[in-house]
């Protein structure tokens, strides 16, 4: 059996086991169990982290606009799927608020309620992604010409502007102003999240391993050389930006699904920072790393380390130390240690199949010499 085949089998096996674990969790646990919550949230974060990695890690564009694109996705998803019957209560402050149609109702009429709802949800997700991509195209025209750190600050600013617009009462009949949007359909179980996010991540992996993905990596490694070798910088950067935003938009829509209610407030720059740090922990330039880091991060912050905040951790009861905020303080110290001393993160730029690679020869030689 050759190496490539081995790798494929290994990867498929790992993914299958993980998926099976998730299905088992779904079948055995009630949907409000914290394990299900963790899986749902982590898959959403994983998708967004991977989309950010596509831009920051694979194309070398330092953008901090992820929260803005998620906002677009989240709002389009919920605005499009709130059933007509619920609009009066949701838009309580805006008479005749909401769009005059609802995807869930439209498709419910065509395919029957259950299937129709799901079809409507998926189409709304897709539209959220497309809207994010459209905005990425528009904002990319002026902004992508900027150099690294200017690009970062400009995209950050763009996300803030979007947030202000979505909270503006002038758009209230659609966005419900500062008020929550709710009563839209969601998936209770974790498996649909895993399937959607998994498919999206698979698409990103396919992109990265295609000729365009290689061009992105060339731009990241050396822009000047890439341009000299015939890669149109503006076009490829824009493409990467739009694609990344598309997936961030889908991620935002899934975030709306996960949260059950949404408002613009959570989509602030802190969310982008959080995702960025997840990408760093996982390894800039590693899809596997981003996914792994998302799960670790969400699992520990939402579940494992909650004790750090509420008095007792690992059986040690010390309310004076383990009080509110200790968990996040510990987290940020870990993050700084990773940023400073393990700059490659968990995975470096390796992917799941690379785990089977032999160690570099040089190290073996060194070990031998050491003996």
């Amino acid at each position: 059996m050759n190496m490539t085949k081995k790798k494929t089998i290994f990867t498929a096996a790992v993914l299958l086991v993980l998926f099976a674990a998730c299905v088992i969790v779904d079948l055995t646990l009630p949907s409000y169990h914290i394990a299900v919550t963790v899986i749902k949230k982590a898959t959403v974060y994983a998708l967004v982290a991977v989309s950010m990695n596509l831009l920051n890690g694979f194309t070398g564009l330092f953008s901090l606009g992820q929260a803005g694109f998620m906002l677009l996705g989240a709002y389009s998803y919920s605005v499009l799927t709130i059933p007509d019957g619920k609009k009066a209560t949701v838009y309580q402050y805006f008479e005749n608020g909401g769009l005059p149609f609802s995807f869930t109702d439209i498709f419910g009429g065509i395919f029957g309620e259950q299937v129709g709802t799901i079809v409507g949800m998926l189409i709304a997700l897709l539209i959220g992604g497309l809207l994010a991509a459209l905005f990425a195209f528009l904002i990319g025209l002026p902004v992508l010409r900027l150099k690294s750190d200017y690009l970062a600050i400009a995209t950050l600013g763009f996300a803030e502007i979007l947030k202000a617009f979505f909270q503006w009462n002038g758009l209230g009949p659609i966005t419900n102003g500062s008020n929550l949007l709710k009563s839209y359909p969601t998936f209770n179980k974790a498996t649909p999240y895993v399937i959607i996010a998994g498919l999206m991540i698979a698409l990103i992996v396919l992109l990265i391993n295609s000729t365009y993905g290689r061009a992105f990596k060339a731009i990241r490694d050396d822009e000047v050389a890439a341009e000299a070798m015939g890669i149109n910088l503006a076009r490829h950067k824009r493409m990467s930006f739009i694609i990344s935003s598309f997936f961030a938009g889908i991620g935002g829509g899934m975030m709306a699904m996960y949260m059950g209610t949404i408002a613009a407030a959570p989509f602030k720059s802190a969310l982008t920072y959080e995702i960025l740090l997840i990408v760093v922990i996982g390894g800039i330039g590693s899809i596997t790393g981003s996914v792994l880091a998302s799960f670790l991060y969400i699992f520990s912050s939402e579940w494992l380390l909650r004790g750090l905040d509420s008095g007792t951790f690992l059986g040690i009861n010390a309310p004076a130390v383990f009080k509110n905020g200790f968990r996040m303080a510990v987290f940020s110290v870990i993050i700084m240690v990773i940023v400073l001393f393990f700059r490659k993160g968990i995975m470096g730029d390796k992917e799941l199949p690379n785990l089977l690679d032999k160690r570099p020869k040089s190290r073996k030689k060194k070990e031998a010499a050491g003996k």
Partner: protein
Amino acid sequence: MSKNVLKIENATMQFGGVVAVDNLNLEINQGEIVALIGPNGAGKTTAFNVVTGVYQPTNGAVWFNGEKIIENHPQGKMKKLYKGEHAGEYNNTIAPTPDVITKLGMARTFQNIRLWKSQTVFDNVLIAKHCRTTSNVFSAIFRLNRKEEAKQRAEVEELLKVVGLYEERNELATSLPYGKQRRLEIARALAAEPTLLLLDEPAAGMNPQETDELTAFIGEIRDKFNMTIFLIEHHMDLVMHISDRIYVLDFGKQIAEGTPEEIQNNQRVIDAYLGVAEDA
């Protein structure tokens, strides 16, 4: 009569008040190896950068395969500052980016190697093929372009065999020894399927033996690919050995042009390289 591949016409490149390239005129014909030499700071790399679209010339034009691809004239602030000649002869602006020029059929290497560091030898060459890809991003994602991809991979393998890097194809580009990195850069440029190859000091930092190998290699490339080559070089052995014609720059100005023999005996060139005594 051989075909004219590259023609630089009255090109002037001025940075603020500094004239880096002053009214350069140059022609390269099909199948020729032409060298551009001159002391450090003479403006050789700047001339390359003008031709490849990295810099926009302050004045002048560049023709490639009979088509005008670059043109500019002093504008804005430069109008007052401009110190060169022929300002009035150009009134149009054509300013393509380097990738456009590469697609037209010109590929270059860099003075200080600029390989894609995290990529393997194979991928470095394969990425250069990207500019010849016709499939769009969707067909790339959904793998509808398998045929094209397979063809490109086969071509890259072939190319690597020709330049003698096939054995190392799966190693990281940066792990190659220096001489092979130079070779890889040339292979990468060839993968972009150019008709004119621009080499920026390909022998920089090489020992005599490596230089000899490189000289032979460049000759091979010309013969095998029927390539026109334009190179900048400091190693006079190499230059004199393979060049058909040589242009000499000093302080941005062209001071001589001719066959290697002519250049070797040109007094101005010798002066430029050795310096002229104060009283001369």
